[in-house]
């Protein structure tokens, strides 16, 4: 497996400019001869499809939703970072770069992160031009807030709907290209395989989710922007149909997956209530700006009315453990602390898996109307879901799977180990290392789509002759048959269990053994039971209905089948990474007071897994991370 990251030469700050100059361009007259497939219409895919279409390439864009506007990027609430330094508070490209590297616990590639920071400002400009209604100050300037524990205010936001507004911006640009005929949009199409011709990615196989048709599509290059895989845990903040399918099937065709075990658990979600639950809802992290997190100091108080527990009997554990960052400690750290408190039996709520997020003091200090103005919609949402009034009783929160830093390995050009297969957004592994900072995923998705891929894909295209292969060709036929057989196998099983019930079971295993903290023993256990569950799936699955019509159970089963294989890789990676770093916490590697301990000597690298066939062990390859600019230090938020 060739893991040449193709990092350009020169000083960090000049790398991107040098690179832009040195890469080849596609002659404008030739652009219309090239066809590109974009799978995914979220921030990454939508922005890429629109921009490439605008440049004159012929684009086919696919998504599984009924409209490109519904990609899960829509759900992001908090905001998007950019090193604009509009607040004059000392922000800079370098600081954003450094914060991201440090936040990722020194497990990301310097050059990529620097480019991200460099381009972050352009994203805001672009979005403003598209009409994204970012919050403004009275004077008409863009407003910012500090987010996710950053010490500067660099987050741009649009009420509690930043993701939706940014996505609508990308979607509107995409719509314009669809109208102009540059982009053909295929909604309700799920990619089920990647097609390679002579080792290059040249097309995909999809299933039309409305009528079940299996179809082949060819192009000169394929871009995957299919989002993250947090739903491997079943319960997560992600949308129901988020999946690893596209990534996994590309992996099976030769794309290496990097650091699959890096998954971010978000500290402020509404706790689970029961087994019926299909989704965990995120409460914006901004609540932590004004709220204090606590649990009863004594186990005996845990079912008491929180109002009746006096201050001295409360344990404000984040403030206690991280005096300087307090309630704003980074996500991985806050999540782990909450879990610890609950493990000690001090968790609240009916399940004992919850901690209080208390805004009572802020309400007292600032008045209810101010709090209502800031967080009114969140309080309403909380009440809708839990039936509790958070003005009178502290909210209960608990960590939930939220974001996956791992993904398909890509080089500086965002190309995977398969030539011609590019991967953008959450689906790739690139920029966040072992932990992502708040408000940085939106930035990365748009950066990849608007500003990176339009240049870097040209470098690849310039070396291939234009002219997508015939989608009737043998490679396509063969892949189509594989998909068709697979679908038949799924639907023909005639067992007893629903795909959901198996997904729930898998989720529990993953949460237990490969969740917020991991152990050698637990991971080995998981590696033992996941294959059993997979066998159960392939023996006892039941999918009513036919494959030639809309069949949600069939869709779900396909996704669960991939999760069942992918989960194993995740655990294997977690087991292999014998250190704690960022969101990957191995209990064997912690300080006395429970802080993560990295092993820089052995693990300053990216683990890239190569697929070796069904029921075969994958092979690990390594990309070493070289830090020329920053010195890995102990990430302390005390």
């Amino acid at each position, binding site marked *: 497996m060739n893991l040449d990251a193709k990092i350009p030469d020169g000083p960090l700050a000049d790398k991107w400019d040098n690179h832009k100059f040195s890469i080849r361009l596609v002659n404008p007259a030739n652009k219309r001869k090239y066809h590109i497939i974009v799978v995914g219409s979220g921030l990454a895919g939508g*922005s890429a499809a*629109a921009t490439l279409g605008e440049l004159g390439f012929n684009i086919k864009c696919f998504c599984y939703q009924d409209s490109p506007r519904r990609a899960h990027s829509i759900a992001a609430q908090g905001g998007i970072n950019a090193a604009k330094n509009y607040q004059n508070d000392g922000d800079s490209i370098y600081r954003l770069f450094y914060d991201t590297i440090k936040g990722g616990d020194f497990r990301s590639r310097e050059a990529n992160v620097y480019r991200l920071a460099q381009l972050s400002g352009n994203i*805001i400009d*672009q979005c403003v031009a598209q009409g994204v209604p970012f919050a403004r100050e009275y004077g008409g300037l863009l407003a910012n807030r500090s987010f996710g524990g950053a010490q500067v205010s660099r987050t741009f936001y649009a009420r509690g709907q930043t993701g939706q507004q940014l996505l*609508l911006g990308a979607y509107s640009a995409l719509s314009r290209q669809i109208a102009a005929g540059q982009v053909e949009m295929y909604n309700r199409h799920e990619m089920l395989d990647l097609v390679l011709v002579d080792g290059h990615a040249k097309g995909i196989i999809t299933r039309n989710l409305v009528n079940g048709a299996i179809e082949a599509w060819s192009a000169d290059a394929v871009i995957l922007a299919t989002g993250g895989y947090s739903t491997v845990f079943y319960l997560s903040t992600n949308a129901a149909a988020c999946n690893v399918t596209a990534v996994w099937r590309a992996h099976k065709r030769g794309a290496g997956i990097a650091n699959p075990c890096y998954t971010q658990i978000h500290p402020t979600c509404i706790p689970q209530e029961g087994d019926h*639950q299909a989704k965990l809802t995120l409460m914006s992290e901004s609540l932590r700006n004004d709220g204090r997190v606590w649990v009863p100091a004594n186990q005996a108080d845990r079912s008491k009315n929180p109002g009746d527990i006096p201050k001295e009997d409360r344990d404000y554990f984040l403030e206690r453990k991280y005096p300087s960052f307090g309630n704003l400690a980074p996500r991985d750290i806050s999540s782990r602390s909450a879990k610890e408190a609950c493990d000690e039996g001090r968790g609240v709520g009916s399940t004992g898996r919850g901690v209080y997020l208390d805004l009572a003091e802020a309400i007292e200090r600032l008045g209810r109307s101010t709090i209502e103005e800031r967080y009114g919609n969140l309080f309403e949402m909380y009440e809708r879901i839990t039936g509790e009034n958070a003005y009178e009783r502290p909210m209960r929160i608990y960590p939930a799977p939220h974001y996956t830093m791992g993904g398909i390995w890509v080089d500086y050009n965002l190309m995977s180990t398969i030539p011609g297969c590019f991967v953008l957004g959450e689906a790739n592994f690139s920029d966040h290392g072992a932990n992502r900072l708040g408000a940085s995923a939106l930035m990365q998705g748009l950066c990849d789509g608007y500003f990176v891929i339009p240049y870097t894909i040209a470098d690849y295209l310039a070396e291939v002759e234009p002219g997508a292969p015939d989608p009737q060709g043998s490679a396509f036929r063969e892949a189509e048959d594989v998909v068709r057989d697979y679908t038949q196998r799924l639907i023909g099983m005639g067992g007893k269990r629903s795909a959901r019930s198996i997904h729930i079971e898998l989720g529990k295993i993953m949460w237990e053994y490969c969740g917020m903290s991991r152990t050698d023993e637990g991971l080995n256990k998981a590696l033992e039971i996941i294959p059993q569950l997979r066998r159960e799936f392939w023996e006892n699955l039941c999918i009513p209905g036919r494959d030639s019509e*809309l069949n949600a159970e069939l869709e779900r089963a396909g996704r669960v089948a991939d999760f069942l294989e992918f989960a194993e890789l995740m655990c294997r990676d977690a087991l292999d990474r014998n250190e704690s770093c960022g969101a990957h916490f191995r209990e064997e590697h912690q300080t006395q007071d429970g802080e993560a301990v990295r092993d820089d000597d052995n693990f300053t690298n990216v683990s890239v897994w190569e697929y070796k066939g069904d029921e075969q062990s994958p092979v690990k390859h390594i990309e070493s991370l070289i830090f020329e600019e920053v010195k890995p230090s102990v990430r302390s938020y005390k």
Partner: protein
Amino acid sequence: MNLLLKIWRQSGLQTPGRLVDYQIEEVPEESSFLEMLDLLNEQLISSGEEPVAFDHDCREGICGTCSLTIDGIPHGPERMTTVCQLHMRKFNDGDTITIEPFRSKSFPVIKDLVVDRSALDAIMQAGGFISARTGGASDGNAILIAKETADRAMDAASCIGCGACVAVCPNASAMLFTAAKVSHLNSLPQGKPEKDRRSLAMVKTMDDSGFGNCTNTGECQAVCPKDISLDFIAQLNRDYARASFSNLLNKK
């Protein structure tokens, strides 16, 4: 809680549908409406029957995918709430609940409760954008936008494109959706250059897609999960008139 569900079942566009009764027992009060349907589907699968098809994705009220009409009200009885955020504690033990798809000629039924809303995308493609080429933008702070203006644009932009406004409108009109989309961009200085063109084109596509005409009944705002205001319909009426007249007068 135990419920009697009357659910619209329809195997495809060409086939007629009908309401089918389902009894469901022991629904937890904390569950959401869609989780209740998940339970029903599990029950159906375990007895080898075909589960009820319904659209959903984010389950947190933002993607606009979920689209059920409950007892004659799109998204159900709770105001400003999508059906995925509607919880069963709003219902009583023993209730009979009728569940139908969003109905409109422009939203053909794909299966059961799943409809095709691509007509809304078509309206957007007609002009729901600002032609800002990637890379061509000036600094974000180069254009000053008063907070009130930005807020108003944001009010309009918060539409999640669910189509409940169409589903509830006695005329199956898409005016609230279209107005929200047009007003979002028309309100902002960046959107001004294409304002007239946009208003004309989006209304034309809306009309051509077979939606009905608004008669100002105001049902749409009442069920809109984002409480999009009828003001935007008025604004569109105004913008469209202005665009038409300036076109009439400026014809070469």
